[in-house]
């Protein structure tokens, strides 16, 4: 049996079989030294076993004795070889006596510990973020909702990686159909390994839309808030990002900070975010339409300003816009990929190339630099990368349409954008929810955020039971 396990694992050097002789019986300890905490094995288990050896008067069944008295908080008896291998990979040590196998948990801490939030920063509120450890992540959520109705269901996905996936929901709020739907979708996943939760998200997506239809977050407080409004969280092992389904488009304009501040301020900031989204998607296209087709909209004094700035630039405006866009994207990409020591050098070169030098050389007009700069800054307002990626592509579409037929093109592109957004659904929930199927109560947590809603209501669509907070 032991030999078979060894060959199945492929004689990995980190797989260790420690053989002991206790009361004339052969006892073996099986474990991976890379997955287990060897200190615990030494200090607790081995020490204890050697202590038994010195007491010679043991005449009872050693296997039973060990099962009862070995110092471990969790001893599970395992029966066949598949189970043994699975449990070994989970960081257990397996004790074998006379073909009886007992497993004890001695998992090693394999993550960086709970760290600070990095991408979804807030001014107030908790600062802890999810880690790569599945147990820790579940714990971070459970810590916030200490209730028997917070249910967890586990799955193992990945033919080779055997990654743990947990579905969490609040039983007396969430919709059962939604949970069934998610379970079905997870059960048909057929892949060798899941390196990140985005892989699951790709399986969930059925249309080709650029906008994400799940909410990815690293904030446990956001997850607990959304769980309480009837959503379902999907925790994936080895990923510091938790998926929340269903997602609505307007939620990408909300942050956790909105709920921690004065609601008037939150409303104002949400408005700014929406303006930023419109700016980042439409501004270059709009500018091109104004300056190459529809002068009549621009007041003459502004038009003369445009004309003065554009004078002497040899390229067509469209080319200018695309050029500046590409330069900015290159800068952004290098900034992400380059080692942090090169950052300052990069920013000096970038600022010079993008700003002053290009204008002085007559390659681009100053106003185009301003347009692209405003566009780029507006794009960064989203902490969720997928939305800014989508707006990037849509910006190019707007530029294309504007360069073909001016304001008419801009509005055609706008119609396409709106029809795209409206046609998306997230697990059969309408993506534009509080707006597209209009709901008066949920308007209070749309662009607006009111104190009344914040303290009183859950989302009317996702929470099917207990729609009022504070009833139980």
């Amino acid at each position, binding site marked *: 049996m032991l030999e078979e396990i060894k060959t199945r694992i492929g004689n990995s050097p980190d797989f260790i079989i420690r053989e002991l002789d206790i009361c004339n019986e052969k006892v073996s300890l099986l474990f991976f030294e890379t997955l287990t905490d060897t200190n615990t094995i030494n200090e607790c288990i081995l020490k204890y076993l050697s202590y038994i050896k010195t007491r010679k008067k043991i005449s009872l069944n050693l296997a039973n004795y060990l099962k009862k008295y070995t110092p471990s908080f969790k001893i599970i008896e395992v029966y066949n070889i598949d189970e043994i291998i699975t449990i070994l990979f989970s960081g257990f040590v397996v004790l074998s006596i006379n073909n009886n196998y007992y497993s004890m948990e001695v998992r090693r801490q394999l993550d960086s510990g709970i760290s600070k939030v990095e991408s979804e920063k807030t001014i107030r509120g908790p600062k802890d973020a999810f880690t790569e450890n599945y147990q820790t992540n579940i714990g971070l959520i459970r810590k916030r909702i200490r209730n028997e109705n917070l249910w967890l269901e586990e799955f193992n996905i990945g033919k080779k990686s055997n990654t743990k996936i947990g579905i969490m929901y609040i039983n007396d709020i969430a919709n059962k159909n939604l949970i069934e739907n998610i379970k079905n979708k997870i059960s048909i996943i057929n892949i060798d390994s899941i390196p990140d939760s985005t892989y699951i998200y790709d399986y969930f997506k059925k249309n080709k839309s650029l906008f994400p239809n799940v909410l990815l977050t690293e904030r446990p407080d956001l997850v607990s808030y959304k769980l309480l409004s009837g959503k379902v969280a999907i925790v994936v092992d080895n990923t510091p990002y938790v998926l929340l389904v269903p997602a609505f488009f307007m939620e990408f304009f909300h942050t956790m900070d909105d709920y921690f501040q004065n609601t008037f301020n939150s409303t104002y900031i949400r408005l700014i975010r929406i303006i930023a989204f419109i700016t980042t998607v439409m501004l270059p296209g709009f500018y091109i339409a104004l*300056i*190459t*087709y529809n*002068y*009549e909209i621009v007041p*003459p*004094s502004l*038009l*003369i300003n*445009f*004309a*003065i700035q*554009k*004078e*002497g*630039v040899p390229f*067509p*405006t469209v080319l200018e816009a695309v050029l500046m866009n590409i330069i900015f994207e290159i800068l952004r990409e290098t900034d992400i990929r380059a080692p942090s020591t090169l950052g300052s050098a990069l920013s000096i070169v970038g600022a010079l190339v993008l700003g002053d030098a290009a204008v002085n050389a007559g390659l681009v007009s100053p106003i185009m630099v301003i347009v692209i700069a405003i566009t780029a800054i507006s794009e960064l307002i989203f902490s969720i990368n997928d939305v800014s990626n989508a707006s990037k592509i849509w910006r190019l579409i707007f530029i294309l*349409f504007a*360069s*073909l*037929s*001016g304001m*008419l*093109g801009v509005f*055609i592109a706008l119609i*396409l954008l709106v029809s795209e957004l409206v046609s998306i659904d997230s697990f059969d929930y309408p993506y534009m929810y509080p707006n597209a199927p209009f709901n008066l109560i949920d308007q209070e947590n749309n662009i607006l955020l009111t104190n009344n809603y914040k303290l009183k209501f859950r989302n009317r669509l996702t929470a099917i039971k207990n729609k009022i907070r504070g009833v139980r």
Partner: protein
Amino acid sequence: MKKIILILLIFFLTGCTDYKELTDMAIVTNVAIDYKDDYKLIIQVLDNKENNNNVIIYESNGNTLEEAFRNISLECPKKLYLGHIQTFIVKDDVFKINASKFIDFILRNHEIEKDFNLLVTSNDIKDIMSIKTELINIPSESISKGITNSSVVKGISNIYFDNYLMILYDVGIDPVLPTIKIKDNNIVLNDELAIFRKDKLVSYLDKDSSFGYSILNDKASKSIITFKCDSNNYSSIEILSTKSNYKYINNSLIINLNLTATLKELNCNIDITNDNGINKLKNMFIDEIKRIINKTIDDEKKLNSDYLGIGRYLYKNDYNFYISNNMNNVIKNMNSKIIVDVTFTQKSSIKKGDEKY
């Protein structure tokens, strides 16, 4: 698939029609025309070389305006863009000799927006176009902003080209246009309106009649009326809002005028703390307004141009009377009666006229 078809349609059906780079265009802001044997055209084009908001002047001739505009291309290397014309100055000779045939060119041209200021001048257009304006460098902007702001003086009507057209093609009413002139080597707005009979220029109204026209058309808000309050002192009252309507009954024109006004300057010894003083002031004010409006009506009778639109009033309200009578005779023989009702909204904190002495 539908989306793809739509995109392709835009490519092939409309692809880049109307595409024009801003740097290839010369933006025309000010146009002046004159007619002697053929059209004489002077335009001002915005100079976008430097940041000084200068204009460049081009001149040409042509038998039609279109030809004259095309002839400018011999001098001007860029394509003319007419969408931002702010002022269109017409020498009064054009209205006298060739009437308003130039309107056809403006109406047919899809690029020209129809909300520019149409102005009449009696000066030579070359002189007017070569004047550099001081405070606002672009002359057309200087003129059009000046017209908007000058309503505080005598209610110079801000008449755009489309207003002019609407009145021109209406029944029983004749258009008026504001005028500009050169004074001390500067363009100034003339507070005398040019009046027409249909599209022919008849004459110019004097200051008082022009003001009366503004009051009767409810365009005189924010303007002031200055009147003599005793033998040698003057006072000013600002008109805040006016509301007027006409009635024509039995050969007499009855004008009802409701005004709200505020006292701006009082230089006579009138005690306005009591009703007597206020009524005294009111009566003097009403007399002055009646004098101005009577002047306007007298001019209408004399000059044979129905700029007040009495013909239109009758056409709408008493059609049989309108077609059975000659309007010129009706206007010449009508009596007029003016009923003015004034409300003073505030008299400011100085209570008595003589408190300050």
